[in-house]
């Protein structure tokens, strides 16, 4: 086929509709939102809401966990939208995306200094670190698949490692959002290690899978 013919063909299949990047932004945002809804549903259906969630300390910690997950998720979407465009990786700052992790780690460090050393173990591993470690990555699978599909369908990332990492970060964040409704542990170090750690794990998995899954 001659390239001129192709251009003629593409030109004639051109639709007279204005297209804007905001269209892609909305689609990606929607994919993350649907992913979050799936994560919530999975967490509620499989794990169930924690008893006594609406009382003082559990409620306070729920707000803390939600704030952490929302901050991570918000930054993930912000940069995901950029990395989904060709060349957009130059406007992605993974250091800034890591700020919520740094902040929570700092808070955890501060809170550990207020308790005696022999309680550190209990503060960090809590009642259910294993459940958290398993649940967040498992719940993240559905949002991860959804957002991956959306990036492939609507975007055109040219840095697949970063794009994958950000998909993983977003999926991990919405998964943590859902899991927080069930989570029984109310200490800052627990959130820092197990929420932060599992979301980081999802990010790493995304970075590894990105080059395979996000090709277009």
């Amino acid at each position, binding site marked *: *086929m*001659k*390239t*001129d013919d*192709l*251009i*003629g063909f*593409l*030109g004639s*299949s*051109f639709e*007279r*509709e*204005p*297209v*804007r*990047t905001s*269209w*892609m932004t909305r689609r990606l945002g929607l994919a993350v939102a649907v992913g979050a809804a799936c994560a919530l549903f999975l967490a509620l259906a499989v794990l169930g809401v924690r008893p006594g969630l609406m009382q003082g300390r559990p409620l306070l910690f729920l707000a803390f966990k939600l704030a952490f997950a929302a901050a991570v998720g918000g930054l993930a979407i912000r940069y995901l939208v950029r990395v*989904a*465009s*060709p*060349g*957009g990786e*130059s406007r992605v700052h993974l250091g800034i995306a890591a700020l919520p992790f740094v902040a929570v780690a700092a808070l955890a460090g501060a809170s550990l200094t207020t308790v005696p050393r022999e309680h550190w173990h209990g503060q960090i591993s809590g009642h259910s670190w294993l459940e958290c470690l398993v649940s967040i990555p498992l719940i993240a699978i559905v949002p991860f698949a959804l957002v991956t599909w959306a990036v492939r369908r*609507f*975007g*055109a990332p*040219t840095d697949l490692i970063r794009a994958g990492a950000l998909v993983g970060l977003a999926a991990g964040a919405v998964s943590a959002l859902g899991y927080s409704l069930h989570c029984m542990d109310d200490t800052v170090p627990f959130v820092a290690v197990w929420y932060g750690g599992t979301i980081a794990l999802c990010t790493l998995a995304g970075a590894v899978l990105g080059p395979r899954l996000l*090709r*277009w």
Partner: protein
Amino acid sequence: MADDAIDFVLPLGGHEPARLARVSQAEEELRGLLVASLGGSAVDYRRFLERLGSHLRAYYKGKLVRSGRTDTEAEDLVQETLMVIHTRRHTYDVTQPVTPWVHAIARYKLIDHLRQTRATAANVPVEDAGVLLAHGDHVAAESSLDVARLLAHLPAKMRSAIQSTKVDGLSTAEAAARSGMSETAVKVSVHRGLKALAKLVGGTAR
């Protein structure tokens, strides 16, 4: 005026004023055409694709010929890139310069192509965005898609035999294993298929 135009093009450091001026001129022109296209102008869109096609051709020829590849391969990449630019044109942010966007796509498709054809990207230098728009090449080689179109006219057996041995470069034995035919059947199919192709080509030439 020229200085402003040069500053507009992002990722270049400059000892080549002539090239820079050419790049910034191309950037402004392409950007104008693309923005008009995205606003709904089909005429500008066609012109955009034509201009871009010539830049892409020069870019891919330059990259591929250095690693001993053919013009046809470069033309395939030009077409592939034009197609993805068409289907993903909504990823262009009109507030940004067009050069980095186009270059990112062209480079991505180049690396993807090299990976698929089992060459290492290290063999082909991948440079800054300005290189893409520094040159144009209006001499289009025909792409290998022509062969695909001709092959589509052949019966399935002949088509797969020719595809395997002549296009994908497999040996007769490998082609036989892939298609489940005997080696003799593959040879016969190739022979008949080539004859039929020659007829087709003769037919279109007349």
